[in-house]
């Protein structure tokens, strides 16, 4: 029957099986003991080269800082932490390859990584297949709820929708330009925003949607058409999901064409302190950004964090930003959950993470909710001449993330809840059925 072992008797087979079992058991014990005494490995999956390096390098540095700090405090479960840094080079398929390496080869207990949604979508199947943990620190478009991913960045209702509300209420904006880079995050966010604005009674002709490629640098006629769109008499604002360094020439062109924040304010979801460090911010004063953290927030925790960061990077000019805070929160949550579970085993930690609450850097607490998203305060800030943000609006408490948008027809009945007995990323409350949680 077995072509490889044609002449083995039944007894021989039994003996062989026993031997194999012994070997496997010894090997297992060996592996387990090595795991229990050696350092706990943490994967860091951020691009250190290519277009996204500008944003992601900082996140690698902040993770190294957090790990160093934790080791000084005695590590976790009495074991040291060890960072495994890989460079997926802004190459989306390479993200999946590197993720597989981190989990299967390096045996990382958890991975902190990704920036763009497309990179997250690329690694998602790997983390689900190998049942490992990913902390994703960037604001994103929602519409996803995986058991193996913990989203420490903002969902649309923790960033985009409050920003639109602010302009609606405070600046009485009635005409909207939705400008974005052409990929999944801006497209989905703008789809949600368009549905939201229409639900508030904004007519279709008062919404202009524009997409540009990554790294777009010639904004002359797009800015001119925004100016024209804004001359219809109603107060106009731009909601920008323009990502990466295309923002610099965009803002430069706005400044040169004389569009001031008092005329047509731009509220951006992807422009933080790091991005502003590369621009002359004087023409941008008054334009807005919505985040869950600003470097300019005044409280003792944040002061300490900024001081630590500057000391760690040995650069007194380094800025801090929102995704960094998300990593700090995510890391602290993971430490707490591991201590609660008493093991780094994925299933135990995934269950232990829900309900964990740690201080954020804006003076409150963030908690991991059953939908694997965290609670966050929403801040709206105006750009100042020094490249920092002046907080002009803050939600009184923290906001719970809506992973599935209630403004999109396909997803309005879905919820994610990874607690037993539901344990489902996309549970339809109407039909009482559970779909995969990857996509509705």
């Amino acid at each position: 029957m077995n072509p490889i072992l044609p002449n083995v008797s039944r007894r021989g087979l039994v003996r062989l099986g026993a031997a194999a079992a012994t070997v496997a058991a010894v090997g297992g014990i060996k592996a387990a003991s090595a795991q229990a005494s050696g350092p706990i490995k943490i994967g860091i999956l951020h691009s250190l080269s290519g277009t996204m390096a500008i944003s992601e390098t900082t996140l690698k540095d902040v993770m190294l800082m957090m790990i160093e700090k934790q080791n000084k405090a005695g590590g976790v479960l009495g074991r040291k932490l060890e960072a495994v840094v890989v460079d997926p080079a802004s190459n989306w398929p390479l993200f999946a390859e590197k993720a597989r390496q981190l989990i299967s080869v390096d045996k990382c207990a958890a991975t902190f990584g990704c920036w763009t949604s497309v990179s997250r979508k690329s690694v998602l199947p790997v983390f689900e297949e190998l049942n490992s943990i990913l902390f994703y620190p960037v604001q994103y478009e929602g519409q996803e709820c995986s058991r193996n991913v913990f989203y420490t960045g903002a969902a649309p209702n923790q960033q985009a929708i409050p920003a639109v509300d602010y302009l609606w209420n405070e600046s009485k904006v009635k005409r909207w330009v939705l400008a974005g880079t052409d990929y999944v995050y801006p497209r989905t966010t703008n789809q949600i925003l368009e549905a939201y604005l229409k639900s508030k009674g904004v007519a279709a002709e008062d919404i202009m949607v524009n997409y540009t490629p990554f790294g777009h640098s010639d904004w002359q006629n797009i800015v001119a058409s925004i100016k024209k769109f804004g001359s219809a008499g109603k107060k106009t604002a731009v909601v920008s999901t323009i990502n990466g360094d295309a923002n610099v020439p965009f803002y430069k062109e706005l400044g040169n064409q004389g569009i001031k924040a008092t005329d047509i304010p731009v509220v951006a979801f992807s422009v933080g302190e790091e991005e502003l460090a590369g621009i002359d911010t004087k023409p941008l004063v008054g334009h807005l950004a919505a985040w869950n953290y600003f470097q300019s927030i005044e409280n003792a925790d944040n002061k300490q964090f900024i001081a630590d960061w500057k000391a760690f990077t040995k650069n007194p000019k380094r800025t801090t930003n929102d995704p960094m805070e998300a990593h700090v929160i995510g890391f602290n949550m993971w430490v707490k959950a591991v201590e609660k579970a008493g093991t780094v085993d994925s299933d135990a930690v995934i269950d232990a993470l829900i309900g964990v609450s740690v201080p954020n850097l804006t003076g409150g607490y963030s908690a991991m909710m059953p939908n694997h998203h965290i609670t966050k305060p929403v801040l709206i800030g105006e750009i100042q001449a020094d490249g920092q943000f002046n907080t002009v609006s803050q939600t009184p408490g923290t906001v719970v993330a809506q992973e599935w948008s209630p403004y999109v027809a396909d997803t309005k009945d879905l919820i994610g809840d990874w607690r037993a007995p539901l344990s489902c990323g996309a549970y339809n409350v109407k039909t009482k059925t559970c779909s995969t949680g990857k996509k509705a």
Partner: protein
Amino acid sequence: MKRWIFFALLAMTWLTPGAGRAQSADEALAALASTSFNTVREGVEALALSGHPRAQAIVAALQNGKLLARADKALFIKNDDGTFAEAATGAPADVPAAALKPVRVNNAVRGAIEAALGVLRLFAPDPTARLQAAEAVFRSRDPAALPALERALVAEKDPKVKLRMDQARAAALLALPSATEPDRLAAVQTLRTRGDIEARSTLGNLTGQSPAVAEAAASAILAIDRTLQLWSVLQSIYYGLSLGSVLLLAAAGLAITFGVMGVINMAHGEMVMIGAYVTFVTQQVIKTNFPALYPANLLFAIPLAFGISGLVGIAIERALIRWLYGRPLETLLATWGLSLMLQQAVRSIFGANNKDVDTPSWMSGATELGGLTLTWNRMYIVLFSVLVLAALMAALRYTSLGLRMRAVTQNRRMAAAMGIRTPWIDALTFGLGSGVAGMAGVALSQIDNVSPNLGQSYIVDSFMVVVFGGVGNLWGTVVGALTLGIVNKFLEPVAGAVLGKIVVLVLLILFIQRRPRGMFPLKGRAVET
């Protein structure tokens, strides 16, 4: 409405000097020290109308973030030398800086500041300041500014300023509930004559007008839209020219190395990037060592960028490319590898983050020409590309190096037989192409991000331009760049930036299918060799 009455009352108190005026000014100052943006805004508006002698200084200080408040709501202005002065009197004040906090502003306050400064500066001695003031008042459409405008109009002599003030008055009148219908119609007519995007915006903003006024406004909007439409075609052509000149700058160097020498240099973009980093370094050096020269830093950067990129180019030719002549595939791979190495080298030296290259003030902002908005940085780049191209053509035509270059490309063996050291000419030609790319980097540092990836985004465009224009022909490169620029800018509003680019590429592919040698193919013996 309520706000308007408030202003009217304030205006009245302004006209009747005495106790009421002093009180309103004090209240306005107290409001400025508030932490509520709304109160600060009202304070600014009240202060502008209060007639306080230091109103302009205070509001200007607020605009510049130099107005500070103490815990007891006393206001101070921070002087340029770091000392403080009492806001209300201007008297020097000795207060510890730690006790003061700058008054925070948001967009609503900023809008009020602009309008207030507009009203306050209507009587400035400098006509440009008055013109700006009138424009600020025009944008604010604030009926409260009417009394000040009327007085300014009487005093104004400069016809240009007077016209602007008249338009500001029209905009304010339309927002005044008590204005009569003939006044309104005249105001609509004034705005229609102005005929620009601001006037359209003001007219579009009108609500609650009588039928006659509304109809006049609607027809004025139509008329303005029609003129704006015409201007927008011209504007698109200008955008196209400006994009074309950027493409031209990026491709001019490649037209030499690829077009004339036939070397497929994938590292061409990195020469551009090096030029941009040279600009950055030059700026930093001048800023710290020779601050007096700072406004002219780009003029120093241009020759430096040319020299350094040129030297790098010569080094590349000597070390790498000369071993690969006649092997296009190997050249392509080798230079591509080289481009990655150069990128990573720059990333290791300067870091992955974008570098902030300042735009000198004479290159910021825009000028209006009829209905056209011409941004200075783009205008200078158009000019710069013309100069670079002229210099390049002159160099090829009138210098002895240019003569040898042409000789070598037209007939290498004959040129060698005439005693020309062809290997050196190859190196210098490559250096010239790289140097031109470096100069392009100086220009691109003004409009794009200075990052290690800068070159990558231009390499495809550059090849496109050279191939489209016709390999080996500088004029072809010029026409190619401008055509691609203009086509791109006309497609963009219709198809969107993403689809526009795709359409351009498809058109290009079809064109190359029909005319594989580009628009202006080289003829003659050079083609065969």
